């Protein structure tokens, strides 16, 4: 096979270059726009598949150029990057189909898809960043590209939510800038290296290193929606359904969680972080967030808000797995990065379908929707059961590894936490399923008995639901998310 050292760059450019073209297209050129969107997304999936094959064979990609003396813009394609890129590429393709269907007659489609592409480009950049400086670049680009998507509706409520979103994320970005500078001054490099770059600096100046850890995790915690920095996430629910789906599954919260991984594994190194005594508080914080998010989710009647608080809770599984400092927990964390993405995107697309087809936006209106929209609700139910952790669905696999990791690390409380969290998940998801399948619909005037939504809306959630099943059921197959995460953990822990 041909060798292409610029492959990571091409993958970045598929979505980055699509964006200006999409901006410039006239609103009525819907077919051309769809063709470009789907063509680029499909091309990207293929390129990513090629890249992961190459990386699995041990090819090393490393692109860099100097921005300031000693400070480089650096792209790399290590296995951890591949994990995130693959998630983003596959879900971009699926969400694009969904968005085309969802926005078929809406206004500002050119703007929407332009920023959508830009947003996906930013996630790829985040994944492939070879140092914290490059990471910061794409992290801020992600903020800027998602803001117009969040306020897409353009009404007063959306703009208020957008302002909250912008204040939280840009303030977080500013703190990340501070942290990046701190790292640069302290360590003289911002590179991501398995095992960390701060071992010496932390030994000489533990207080500064601890402070840096707090600053960096605090900055990333905003996007990762760690308690108490999560308040923007439920508010950002005013965004259109495909945007929420992308925000929760791939783009924003995952960027935060992914950043936490990079910082703990490759800036500090898990051993240094442990020696600084920072992993235990982080694990505790993640635990608090898991319980808090679930408790808040129970009280929400708005479907999207309930899902949002569920995200607050579920994304912290990833942080928990990282902070437990055990290789098995790390496998669970990494797998959950993928699994949570698949499950949550399914649920958001299904929620969007309910709103489109039946006008149902609240849990209390969900009576009998299972019969009205069986395909959508089947997908939703699968994802919900996966979230609760029912075997053999994807969510079970991550929870299993997290629990094992907790035992391995001698942290028995993790088992209790996971059981409690699963119970709470059941408390807020099962009533939704119960209403959907086992209650008769209120004889609501107006709503059709079997609404017709296009295949572009119906197919994507079903597809991702099947992926939830496959990722869980075939977790041990080669190139499954779980297998790939074992590959990564070998790298992060053997250095």
């Amino acid at each position, binding site marked *: 096979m041909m060798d292409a050292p610029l492959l990571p760059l091409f993958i970045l450019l598929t979505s980055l270059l699509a964006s200006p073209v999409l901006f410039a297209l006239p609103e009525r050129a819907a077919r051309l726009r769809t063709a470009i969107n789907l063509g680029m997304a499909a091309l990207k999936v293929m390129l990513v598949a090629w890249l992961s094959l190459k990386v699995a064979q041990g090819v090393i990609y490393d692109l860099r150029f100097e921005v*300031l003396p000693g400070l480089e813009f650096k792209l790399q394609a290590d296995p951890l990057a591949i994990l995130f890129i693959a998630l983003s590429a596959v879900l971009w393709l699926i969400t694009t189909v969904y968005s085309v269907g969802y926005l078929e007659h809406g206004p500002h489609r050119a703007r929407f898809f332009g920023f959508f592409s830009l947003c996906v480009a930013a996630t790829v950049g985040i994944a492939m960043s070879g140092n914290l400086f490059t990471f910061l670049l794409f992290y801020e680009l992600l903020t*800027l590209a998602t803001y117009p998507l969040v306020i897409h509706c353009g009404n007063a409520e959306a703009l208020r939510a957008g302002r909250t979103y912008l204040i939280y994320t840009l303030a977080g970005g500013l703190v990340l800038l*501070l942290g990046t500078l701190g790292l640069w001054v302290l360590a003289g490099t911002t590179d991501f290296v398995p095992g960390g770059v701060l071992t010496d600096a932390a030994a000489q100046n533990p207080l500064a290193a601890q402070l840096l850890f707090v600053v960096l995790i605090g900055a990333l915690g905003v996007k990762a929606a760690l308690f108490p920095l999560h308040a923007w996430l439920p508010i950002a629910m005013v965004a259109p359904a495909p945007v929420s789906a992308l925000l929760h599954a791939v783009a924003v919260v995952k960027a935060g969680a992914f950043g936490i991984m990079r910082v703990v594994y490759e800036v500090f190194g898990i051993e240094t972080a442990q020696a600084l005594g920072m992993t235990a508080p982080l694990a505790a914080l993640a635990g608090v967030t898991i319980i808090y998010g679930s408790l808040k989710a129970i009280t929400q009647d708005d479907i999207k808000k309930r899902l949002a608080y569920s995200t607050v809770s579920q994304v912290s599984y990833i942080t928990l797995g990282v902070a437990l400092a055990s290789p098995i927990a790390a496998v669970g964390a990494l797998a959950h990065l993928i699994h949570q993405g698949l499950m949550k995107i399914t649920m958001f697309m299904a929620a969007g379908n309910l709103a489109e087809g039946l006008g149902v936006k609240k849990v209390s209106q969900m009576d009998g929707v299972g019969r009205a929209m069986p395909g959508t609700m089947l997908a939703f139910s699968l994802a919900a059961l996966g979230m609760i952790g029912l075997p053999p669905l994807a969510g079970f696999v991550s929870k299993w590894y997290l629990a094992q990791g907790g035992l391995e690390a001698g942290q028995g409380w993790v088992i209790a936490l996971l059981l409690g969290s699963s119970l709470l998940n059941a408390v807020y998801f099962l009533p939704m399923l119960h209403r959907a399948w086992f209650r008769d619909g209120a004889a609501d005037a107006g709503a059709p008995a079997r609404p017709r939504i296009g295949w572009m809306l119906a197919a994507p959630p079903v597809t991702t639901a099947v992926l939830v099943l496959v990722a869980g059921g075939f977790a041990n197959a080669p190139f499954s998310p779980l297998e790939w995460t074992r590959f990564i953990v070998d790298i992060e822990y053997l250095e």
Partner: protein
Amino acid sequence: MSVDISAMMLAIFLPLFGAIAAFLLPRAAALIGLVALALTTGAVIWLAREVWQSGAVILPLGGWGAPLGIDLRADGLSVAMLALTSAVGLLVSVSALDALKGAGQSRQRQYFWPLWLLLLTGINGVYLSTDIFNLYVMIEVIALAAVGLTVLSGTRAAVQAGLEYMYASILGALLFLMGVGFVYLQLGRLDFAGLMDAEPTGALIAAVALMFVGLALKTALFPLHFWLPAAHANATAPASALLSGLVVKAALYIVLRLAQYMPFPSEALLTLVGMMGAGAVIWGGIQALRAERLKLLVAWSTVAQIGLIFVAFARAGELGLTESWKAAALLILAHGVAKAAMFLAAGRIKDEIGHDVIRDLDRSPIRPTLAQFTFALAAISLIGLPPSLGFIGKWALMEGAMASGYWHWVVVTMVGTLMSVAYFSRVFAGFLRFDRVRAPVGEHQGWALADAAPLTLAFAAIGLGLMAAPILSFLEIGYPFGVAP
């Protein structure tokens, strides 16, 4: 070396002859202006090549040489400033063709070009001068042309603002001249090389302080900024872009040069300068948050940004000056490009919508999306988000401050950044809100060729950040700070 000689002379005299010709032939003024600009840009490129290849170049005018005669000198910093001036100037000129094409603007067309070319003469003169009396002459030339550009639109508000600007400018020049006089009394010479050997006596420090206050007035450093917002907000768009992007930079540049060649008074005074900068960042931010009109908001952001440049200058104390000037220079370049783009975009938005009241931007069914996009890109650089040049400047500022433990400057920068996010997001909300429009909003409205120049500038402001390493190494040519050239 006769080659360099002509390049430096050309950079000063081409615009001067252009100004005279444009004044005498008002019908061909635009053509003369563009040709003069293009030729000047060519001369600057030529000069840049020379400096890149063989380091700083010195040209004794009339063959006398300092301290008796007048020297022209170009090093990395001068050429960078010249390049900023010609690149921004050329693009602003192109967009002025469109901005001044209205039927009622014949008088503006007639005077814009001679004034702008005269301004260019003065600015280029500042960047090539090597003695402080020459600098004084050049800043007077700049003031004359800049006041003319301010009142060009002829509105009552503009004339009033122009008058205020003129008083401030005259006072500033007078203070500078007094400083120059004291220096001459002390040392008997005015060239940079002569200043370098001087002992920092009390009288000399007083002279430097006088010069600094004069320059602070001219560059509108808080609390001497009172004239700037009205002057920049009420001028026509291309004039605002020139005033905000280029004119204030000349005085800033002189501050950098003085710091290079004069014994810097003391740590306490440098801290005071930084405090004034911090005051500007905060006060400019507050006023931008309260501004009701788009152009006024942009003008207040200039006040804040100039403050930030002084913070960069003071970021690492007296010992850090050898590095701090580079952070300040990066921010000067970044602000020049981004602010010119932003003022042009604001002018385009005002032209298309018919007003620039921020609160009512979202009521208009016309959305000049390209101009809005330009505005947003420029804002990214001014806020200091990556990968823009503004970000790199801010990075350099905070890095130096952090490394030498001056955490208060880091805090000021972060507060200023957050404030700029807050005031620019007021404008974005106006761009992106649609529920207050009664008529249907069309698509791709208000796209015009006139958007090309500001959009180019805005992309440059973002993209130049990735070229910061070559820019920095260029700046260092012939500029060993604190060491005799």
